[in-house]
């Protein structure tokens, strides 16, 4: 069965919600969250349809939609051709599913936003569209557009609804990401100048430059004397141009991922952002870094990826350990979890750098798994913060007494994140590490670094559990004790499904692996 314009609908239908929210007067502002919820539910349903229709046995792009968007003839310089090109393959599909689920949970979590609702919910839906678009766009230009467009809602969502240092955090987030996208932009232009569309060029008997990512991965489409040609004779800043371009892309995406030492925006942005925004930020935005590496940097510059595999893996290993140690040092629960994200995303880089089927499939799996688990962890923080407006670990002890269900679900989230078998975190870490050990381009000790991370994860999660949730009930501020009631229905509806999801994909990893396996095998053919 083929449904026309399914992806376009998938990406753009939240815009209808934005318009509706903008059109409805502030007097009816209680409807905004329902509109928001409706459109995110809609997205979950459509992604369910996509899951049903997706053909896992094929490695190529599916549901492809293509339309000429901008075509400009520049005389001797050839023709600019920018397409509206959407499609899904194994690399993006897991993340697309993740996006719809996390945005839905985020919408529930936004329920008690109580200032400037109109702006908040319209920005939230706008963010939904741009994130989804980013995962689905197959034209570099279109991808970049969505990529940049995410910044706008994110900046305001942190800057207007955040905590005390929100201005600093949002500016920092914005500038960091902007620098990253600048680097990506440079490479994009370089690629554009080097790659031609073979079909169109044949038809029009002229050079038609293209932004189509599919053409960029085929090395026959590179002009022989262009700036990023395969000859490797062109040097920029003392480096072969293709190597430099790879590094620029890598740094651009590493900022998003984030990789140590480009990570310092993350703890600030997380700590200051309101709970739903933290959920989206950790749950999805970080994954765009990993996705960008797999979609753009690796297939377009396989030569450089091969050459620098060791360096990237080291960076991943450093992130795992550095993030773990930093998490151990935190007294702010949210910051602890933010640093644990740095550590867990390090596994993604390690897996990708290994250039093995296990490693890359594991990295995609780990991104989805971390998306679910970090969403859960930030919601856990949100529950406490909503009640007491305080989340310092040392301020509480024995929270299990007044809030048993909360403590149990926190325990589930913690154990799942520290890699307990049965939950998704375990499979993600296991397969990225397996890739690291198996890799032909990495020495074994790099992967062994990663296993230290699982010890650290046990240490910081269990220590927090011990200090905050177990033992005798005690709170630094006596008045906090009054408001510590257990989870309400809405909170249960966010945490329990996420926990179940982490459990399900943990014992049935095939549900995700079968989606990505074929595409990854295809991607790896270049490296063999």
């Amino acid at each position, binding site marked *: 069965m083929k449904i026309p314009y399914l992806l376009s609908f998938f990406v753009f239908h939240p815009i209808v919600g934005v318009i509706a929210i903008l059109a409805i007067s502030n007097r009816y502002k209680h409807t905004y969250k329902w509109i928001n919820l409706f459109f995110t539910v809609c997205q979950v349903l459509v992604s369910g349809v996509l899951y049903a229709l997706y053909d896992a046995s094929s490695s190529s792009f599916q549901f492809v939609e293509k339309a000429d968007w901008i075509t400009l003839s520049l005389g001797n310089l050839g023709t600019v051709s920018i397409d509206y090109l959407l499609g899904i393959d194994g690399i993006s599909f897991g993340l697309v599913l993740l996006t719809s689920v996390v945005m839905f949970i985020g919408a529930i979590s936004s329920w008690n936003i109580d200032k400037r609702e109109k702006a908040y919910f319209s920005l939230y839906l706008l963010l939904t569209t741009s994130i989804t678009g980013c995962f689905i766009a197959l034209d570099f230009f279109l991808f970049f557009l969505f990529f940049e467009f995410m910044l706008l809602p994110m900046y305001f969502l942190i800057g207007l609804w955040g905590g005390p240092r929100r201005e600093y955090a949002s500016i*920092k987030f914005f*500038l*960091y990401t902007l620098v990253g996208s600048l680097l990506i932009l440079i490479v994009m232009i370089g690629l554009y100048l080097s790659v031609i569309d073979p079909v169109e060029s044949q038809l029009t008997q002229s050079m038609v430059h293209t932004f189509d990512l599919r053409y960029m991965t085929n090395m026959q489409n590179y002009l022989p004397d262009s700036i990023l040609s395969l000859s490797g004779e062109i040097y920029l800043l003392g480096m072969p141009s293709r190597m430099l371009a790879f590094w620029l892309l890598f740094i651009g995406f590493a900022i998003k991922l984030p990789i*140590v*030492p480009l990570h*310092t*925006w993350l703890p600030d942005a997380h700590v200051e952002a309101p709970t739903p925004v933290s959920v989206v930020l950790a749950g999805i935005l970080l994954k765009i870094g990993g996705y960008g590496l797999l979609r753009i940097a690796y297939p377009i510059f396989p030569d450089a990826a091969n050459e620098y595999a060791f360096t990237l893996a080291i960076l991943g290993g450093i992130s795992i350990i*550095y993030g773990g*140690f*930093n*998490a*151990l*040092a*935190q007294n702010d629960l949210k910051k602890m979890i933010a640093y644990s994200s740095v550590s867990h995303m390090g596994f993604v880089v390690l897996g990708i750098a290994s250039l093995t*089927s*296990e490693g890359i*499939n594991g990295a995609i799996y780990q991104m989805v798994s971390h998306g679910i688990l970090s969403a859960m962890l930030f919601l856990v923080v949100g529950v406490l913060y909503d009640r007491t407006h305080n989340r310092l670990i040392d301020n509480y002890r*024995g929270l*299990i*007494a007044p809030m048993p269900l909360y403590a149990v679900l926190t325990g589930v989230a913690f*154990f799942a994140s520290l*890699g*307990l*078998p*049965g939950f998704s975190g*375990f499979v993600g870490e*296991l397969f990225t*590490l*397996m890739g690291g*050990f*198996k890799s032909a381009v990495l020495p*074994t000790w790099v*992967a*062994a670094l990663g*296993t*230290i991370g*699982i*010890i*650290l994860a*046990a*240490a*910081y999660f*269990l*220590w927090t*559990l*011990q200090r905050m949730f*177990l*033992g*005798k009930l005690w709170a630094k501020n006596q008045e906090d004790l009054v408001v510590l009631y257990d989870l309400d229905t809405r909170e249960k509806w966010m945490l329990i499904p996420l926990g179940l999801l982490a459990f399900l994909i943990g014992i049935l*990893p*095939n549900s995700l*692996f*079968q989606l990505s*396996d074929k595409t*990854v*095998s295809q991607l*790896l053919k270049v490296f063999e």
Partner: protein
Amino acid sequence: MFSKLLILLFLPLVSCLGLLTAGKKATIWAGWIASLVSFLGLGISLYFLQSSLHSPHLFSIEWFQLKEKSFTLSLQTDNLTLVMLVLVHFVALLVQVFSISYLHDDEGRWRYFAFLGLFVFSMLLIVLAGSLFLMYVGWELVGLSSYLLIGFWYHKPRAVWAAKKAFILNRIGDAGFLMGILLLIWLTGTSELSLLIPQFSAPTSSISDPQLTLIGLLLFCGAIGKSAQFPLSAWLPDAMEGPTPVSALIHAATMVAAGIFLVARIYFLLTPDALTVIAIIGAITMVMGAYRAIFQTDIKKLLAYSTVSQLGLMVLGMGVGAREASLFHLVTHAFFKAGLFLSAGVVIHAVHSQDMRQMGNLRHSMKTTFVAYTLCAAALAGLPFFSGFLSKDAILVEVFAWASQRGGIAYVLPIVVLFSAGLTAFYITKQWRLVFLPRPASEKAVHESHIHDADTLMKVPLVILSGLSFFVWFSWNPLDAAQGWVFRLFPTNFSHEWHVIVVICSTIAATTGISLGYICTFNHNIPPFVQQLGVVHESIKKTYEQGWNKVKHHFQVLREHDPETEHYLFLISPLQRIGTWLYHFDSKIVDMTVNGFAYLTVIAAHIVGRFDRMVVDGVVNGAAWLVQFVGSRTRNLQNGQAQSYFVVVLVGIIVVILWVLH
């Protein structure tokens, strides 16, 4: 058979989930449900033992495929599995029945029995696992259930601390275990035992010896963690914070023995070098555990150190090639140590204290417990006619044989084993006398005089376990187990060369230990030569403490202060130190660099702004001014008068002519 196996495996998990769902409503009947499940499991295991002994089975299902390579989950049953299945279910059943009475007034019983169900499930997974990967899954899950059960009384800070400590120390071992598995998968392409064994038995192996040694030792790390071997043994004594029946089941009989089971499973890939390291680690653990047990005053901690020591003995046995004898000791130890723990549980239940110095003369008020305890203690001490003697003897024979092959320094090992056997007899006799026999007039028991013995539910497991401490269950010959069923199930070339010597030596060691222990229980009548030993101990302790005091302040940062006992404890603090330091680095250096960049940019922007206003703008304004100046000066030339124009033209012509002529 596969379906029965699955039922066997998942029955405890189902009961666990059921109890958790039922929650507090299940408090009253939770124990009976759990016991029933274990009883069913025991029945199925016995059926398996009877039906498929000597006919190993393997069941595997495909989990998923990656790049045409399939990842399977497999369960296997061989003799070892079948024996372990019966053992686990049997001890679990007894402990659960015991717990019904032991925890009869605890509100959290539903939780307790649910966690026990989870434990049995994960332990079965380890036992049944056909691949190291699946075994690792079970490995982590028993870690979780141990965490939950040690921290069962979660309002006690010390219990929670101990639970965390146990999990993290185990995790350190597990990281090594995982690394070993991944290396193995990398080098051989699989962690399925059924595929690995033929690969290694083939004469041409693709893996070099050092690599194989490394893999073997990394896999052994898992056993170091779980079986509390040196240097990760510190968690087991602390784990005694959990309920006593849990200590009996998990921290004496089954989970801690999983390490031994693991070594037995991977025995085919261990190289001689790896085995030597394993033997040495086992020996260190054995002696340290036995030595530390002597000085304990807490009834459970003494037993915990004793467990550490006995596990060390089993590991040592594995290291010297006595795989089957070690497994035998695992079985006998499981029974008598569980019996000892449950007896200790009855005592604690009655006296409401764990301090042995407050007990004494309990033999009349707790007759059954006294008898059970005595029998189990005799087995632990290694007296002839008891099970412990047989298994310890079997290991010792092999240790002697191992030493005689190597000669010289290798004889240290059998001597160390005999020595620690003596220590074992010493401490267990001391405990026995302290707790059950009358005290001398100079030292009075402090507990209340009204002591009740165990009720029936507690008595039955005790009686069964102590009954199993007799030799008859294992071999008809009270001094030699070579003809016993264990060695028929696990055939081995049992060497008889050293047997007589070993029987004599170990009997001497045990009796010496027992008599010394009996004499030295109370301070006033310690014979002079033991006092001299005590002096040696004191002086060692003193030098140690002096040395420690000198360097203490260097290490204090590595220790964590425990508010309850006012002691410094070593665990997370060193990691946290590094963490704090790195965070400092992160916020002061990395982040400051970023902020510094931003700041520099702003400064640069100001400079550029200044430049813009003064230089660029200045140039523009200057140009305007220049034009204006030139204009105002030359304006006078264009005054509209013909004469002045004529003069200008004339001057111009003259200048041109002069220039041309030149």
